[in-house]
């Protein structure tokens, strides 16, 4: 039987505030466990929460960026459930009156077709602590440093119908959140998380099927694979006349399959009610306008700028702006060395290839200091170093971020542009390899590259390849 696939996403994104959402502890969860904790975020008896202005503003900003309506009054509610990572046994969240309502984003599939994905809401809530299983001590260790970190949950309508659309939506959302600088959106590190709701219904039917919720999706790839897997699983069940159970399933990336997380005790009744410690609060129009005025350029404006002002091709500008980290890096490098097209070419080829080789992750991190990278580009562009040396250096400083100018000095890697010297070296090669000269004369153009290759080998890549090619042709013709 044929089915329509119905997919909705719940995306969680950690906000980059200085302090946590309901207390003044530092919003940072690296380092020693339980060191950014206070009575509020570990739920000591008597402690009380106070909402963080900046977290609310960032939520408004996210809402504005996707065209949500901002509620004039917002309410925090308690979502009650027991779990060791949840210090108070309730999560402060929002249900009936979130900060943002509605909105949506436009996605584009590989064929360039556009589709509008509606949003249900964006609400502000607190993150939970981190659990680390430790079989040695026969228990689970809890670190509440992450507990109380501000989190927005972006809930889509079930408007997607394939893994491809879900990934496009997620990537668009990440892009927006990065651009407006409310979140780092690193999936690997968990600052961007995504739960997928998925159900199947007979093709053309209006009645929604029973949905399963997929959790533990740590990369774009796992989102796609989990969806593919789930579509297969559900259609097999339906084909065999069985029922899909409403449940939460955990994706296991290593085993490429999902597992049911059902527990018999899980009554799943969250008993939401307005948090009596947090009265409803007003969001004046003036506050929304203030937030609006701090909104940075979104991607489309950036693309326009790159094309019109920096002269990049539209394709290059699109690829470059796909990730805000890359944009920021590029802008910095260009500020040190103003050859945007040249730098863009190198980034889109060599750098992106490197990123892909190095990481499974979707999070883009370039370990080379932008100034250092700009210096490398300058040496290459001016002809001080050859392309081969440039690539070698790039590989090296990717690992250790060593000063590339110093390396060139110390190792004498500067390119040899002296025509006479190159000419005499080529003459030596011509004398040594008469067979190759013969080959060339009988029409084998490849023999030219052989000589250049030999030359590079002898000079450890320092000879100017362009000059050498010109010379060898002249000498043999």
């Amino acid at each position, binding site marked *: 039987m044929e089915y329509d696939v119905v997919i909705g996403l719940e995306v969680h994104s950690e906000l980059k505030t200085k302090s946590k959402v309901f207390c003044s502890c530092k919003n940072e969860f690296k380092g020693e466990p339980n060191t950014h904790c206070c*009575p509020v975020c*570990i*739920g*000591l*008896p*008597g*402690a*009380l*929460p*106070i*909402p963080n202005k900046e977290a609310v503003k960032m939520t408004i900003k996210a809402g504005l960026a996707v065209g949500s309506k901002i509620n004039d009054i917002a309410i925090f509610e*308690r979502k*009650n459930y*027991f779990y*060791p990572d949840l*210090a*108070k*046994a*309730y999560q402060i969240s929002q249900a009936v009156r979130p900060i943002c309502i509605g909105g949506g984003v436009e996605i584009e599939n590989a064929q360039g077709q556009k589709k509008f994905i509606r949003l249900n809401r964006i609400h502000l809530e607190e993150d939970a602590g981190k659990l680390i299983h430790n079989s040695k001590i026969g228990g*689970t260790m*809890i670190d509440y440093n992450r507990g109380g970190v501000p989190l927005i949950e972006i809930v889509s309508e079930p408007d997607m119908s394939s893994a491809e659309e879900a990934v496009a939506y997620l990537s668009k959302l990440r892009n927006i959140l990065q651009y407006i600088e409310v979140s780092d959106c690193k999936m690997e590190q968990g600052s961007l998380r995504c739960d997928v709701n998925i159900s199947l219904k007979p093709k053309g039917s209006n009645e929604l099927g029973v949905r399963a919720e997929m959790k533990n999706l740590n990369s774009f790839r796992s989102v796609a694979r989990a969806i593919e897997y789930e579509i297969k699983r559900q259609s097999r069940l339906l084909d065999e006349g069985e029922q899909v159970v409403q449940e939460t399933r955990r994706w296991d990336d290593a085993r490429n399959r999902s597992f049911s997380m059902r*527990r018999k*005790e899980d009554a799943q*009744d969250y*008993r939401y*009610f307005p948090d*009596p*410690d*947090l*009265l409803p609060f007003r969001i004046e129009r003036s506050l929304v306008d203030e937030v609006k005025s701090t909104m940075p350029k979104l991607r489309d404006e950036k693309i326009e700028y790159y094309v019109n002002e920096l002269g990049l091709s539209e394709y290059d500008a699109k690829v470059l702006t796909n990730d805000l980290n890359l944009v920021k890096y590029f802008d910095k490098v260009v500020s040190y060395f103003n050859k945007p097209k040249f730098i863009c070419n190198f980034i889109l080829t060599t750098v992106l290839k490197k990123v892909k080789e190095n990481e499974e992750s979707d999070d883009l991190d370039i370990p080379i200091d932008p100034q250092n990278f700009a210096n490398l580009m300058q040496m290459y562009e001016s002809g001080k170093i050859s392309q081969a040396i440039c690539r070698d250096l790039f590989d090296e400083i990717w690992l250790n971020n060593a000063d590339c100018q110093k390396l060139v000095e110390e190792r004498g890697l500067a390119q040899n542009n002296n025509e006479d010297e190159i000419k005499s070296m080529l003459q030596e090669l011509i004398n040594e390899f008469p067979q190759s000269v013969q080959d060339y004369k009988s029409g084998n153009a490849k023999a030219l590259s052989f000589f250049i290759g030999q030359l590079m080998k002898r000079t450890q890549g320092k000879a100017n390849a362009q000059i050498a090619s010109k010379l060898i042709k002249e000498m043999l013709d």
Partner: protein
Amino acid sequence: MEIMNESLENVSKMLADKSISSVELVKASLDAISSTQKYNILHEVCSESALKSATEVDDKRARGEKLSPLAGVPIVIKDNISMKGTYTTCSSKFLENYKSPYNATVVDKLLQAGAIVIGKANMDEFAMGSSSETCAFGVVHNPRNFDYVPGGSSGGSASAVAADQCFGALGTDTGGSIRQPSSFCGVVGLKPTYGLVSRYGVVAFASSLDQVGPITKTVRDNALILDCIAGYDSNEFTSAKHQKESYYQTSFKNSIKGLKIGYAKEFFESLQNQDVVKSIENAIEFFKANGAEIVDITLPHIKDALAVYYVLSSAEAASNLARFDGIKYGVATKEYNDVIDFYFKSRTQGFGNEVKRRIMLGNFVLSSGYFDAYYNKAKAVQNLIISEFADAFNLCDVILSPTAPTSAFKIGEKVNNPLEMYLNDIFTVPVNIATLPAISVPCGVAQNGMPLGMQLIGNRFSESILYNVADYFEKNCYSIRGVK
């Protein structure tokens, strides 16, 4: 130990003119505590820290530093108020070994004023109860008669004052927990306007109703403590940004001429106890004779306040008490199958029956399918009651009622009938539901020899009016201390 009979106001003056030292007062207080131990009033006595602080205050005074009226005065606080270095058990087995690493805002304020926290008072477990019989560390006995309950939940705090162990105490009041025990013990108790006194560091029972307040021997003593603890707290989102007042300086006018006292028949319709009826009639006669006007008002829905209270307070309590899971603090069961079993067993071992009952009731009204019919309905009726009080205060300055339907009852008398126990709070609960202030002052003695209390309810932030009326009554009509 004559000195322990004195009012806070008097010992404060004696300390100021150095006719007594704080160390002497603390020692007298410690003696009084040990000679009244059988009443099981305090869970913890802070002798060491109290003597140390008393010495410091005496030194400061010797150096001529300007000190607060509370400086050097022994005070008791209820055991649900967090104080560093002491246990904060809420009289629950669950928190028997819990020591708070931080101070409640009210404790910071007391300590800053130089007040000496001499002990932490027993209470109904997690402030759930009206007799101090749900205390996990034994029942508290009424200092006026050992066989009677002191009321609750701040039974220990009221008893500590009545037994002259200290010169004032802090209690908490969610549905009458300051006023009812004050009435049962013959002392003065104020439940301030919601938001006037910080709740930060006070273990929550029902966050939207809880309020800390003073329990004292006299009305003027009460104002001295409120002056110290009232005020906006940036650590509490429900704290009120109310202009700071000096209640002690400005409340007492020694006159009630022209005062309009509201009389709502709804408070008296179900009242059967003739002692209570008579004591209120006396008070009304007194007020009339001294220039006040009695105004008939109507509060048609206060009869529903108790039901509203049980829905809302239990809902909030169920959620507030979920954090007691045995992982971060408190009882952790030794034997369990898995983490869920661990929760069940730790909580079942740590909580008493009344607490369990309220958690269950709370989860019932919050659970899907019942939320609208119970929680939302209770919220709507609460709004109705708030509006009715607001209308009433257009006609009068204060509203008069008994504090409780009876005087103190015997220990064990109501322990097996929770509903009858709940009815104790029928007059006090509407005040919390409407977020208003109210004071209970002694107004007579019942046939059983136990004190009776009168409740004066004010509009929001009208504590100074309540103090004036209560003080006038205490000075000129009735005082259990025999001081006229």
